[in-house]
């Protein structure tokens, strides 16, 4: 059980990778993205008592084109 929560180099790799891919997809600098994550977390924690809880946030960026088509980008931010 302790295996899954311990910060092994494998989980560090996975977290770095997820951060990198979100940053690539949103075209936001990794540093700015980290700041955004911190702000999202503090906003949620301000209104919701989320101590000892892990937050998974899903953001959908929807582009409406002139043909009415949508270009949807889904961004998952896990373990805030």
């Amino acid at each position, binding site marked *: 059980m302790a295996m899954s929560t311990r910060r092994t180099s494998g989980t560090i790799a996975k977290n*770095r*990778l997820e951060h*990198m891919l979100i940053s690539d997809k949103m075209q936001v600098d990794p540093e700015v993205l980290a700041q955004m994550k911190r702000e999202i977390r503090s906003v949620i924690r301000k209104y919701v008592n989320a101590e000892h809880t892990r937050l998974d946030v899903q953001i959908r960026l929807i582009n409406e084109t002139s043909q009415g088509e949508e270009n949807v980008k889904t961004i998952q931010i896990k373990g805030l």
Partner: protein
Amino acid sequence: MSEVIVVTSGKGGVGKTTATANIGTGLAKMNKKTVLVDTDIGLRNLDVVMGLENRIVYNLVDVVEGNCRLKQALIRDKHYPTLYLLPAAQTRDKSAVTPEQMEKLTEELKAHFDYILLDCPAGIEQGFRNAVAGADRAVVVTTPEVSAIRDADRIIGLLEAGGMKQIDLLINRLRPDLISRGDMMSVEDVCEILAIPLIGAVPDDTNIVVSTNQGEPLAGNGTPSGQAFFNVARRVTGEAVDIPDLSRETSFFGRVKAFFRKG
């Protein structure tokens, strides 16, 4: 009905050529008429991995430019009569061929073969665009490393944007010992991030080095990677084959160690 499959990765050195050679050998072992096309013009390697480097007379560029007929450029494998190689040119570069010419070439190959495997060069430039042009489906090869997975994600995005109908994931060079102690991303981790169907998980295996040294692909022999690659070939044909869990140590000693770690 024949299928054109591009083996690609983005990052170099993750095992595209090894995978192409071994999946092709696996398909040939199942008596499928298979041709391996090396699209890495200027940096050809597939001939060496297949051990056919001394038999090259004509190459892909010669066929495209009409210097020879397709049949003259095809090299038959040493062991499997249904397996052929179309080598890349070594003295030219990627601009020697256009995506349209590649599409025409793969159409022509479809008339003679069940499976056409295209070994894609690393990168996302013209060599990549040439290789994917004629393909019906793609196998994206990655290793469980941050850099390789990031590039694989980019490649998957490009393939999807280009309308590739089927994209499968092959995770290469997995180390069960490192995964079980948490020092390598597991098959599940990589699948979760890349979110495409898994077609195979191949363990890191020193036999691959020996196989490449000798120019004898090992798909289907008794080695761990040989078995894994043969299973990939079976899944390519649509056969349902279980993917074994490479996150656990298989040796008795490893299992004992893992047991005590958990406790």
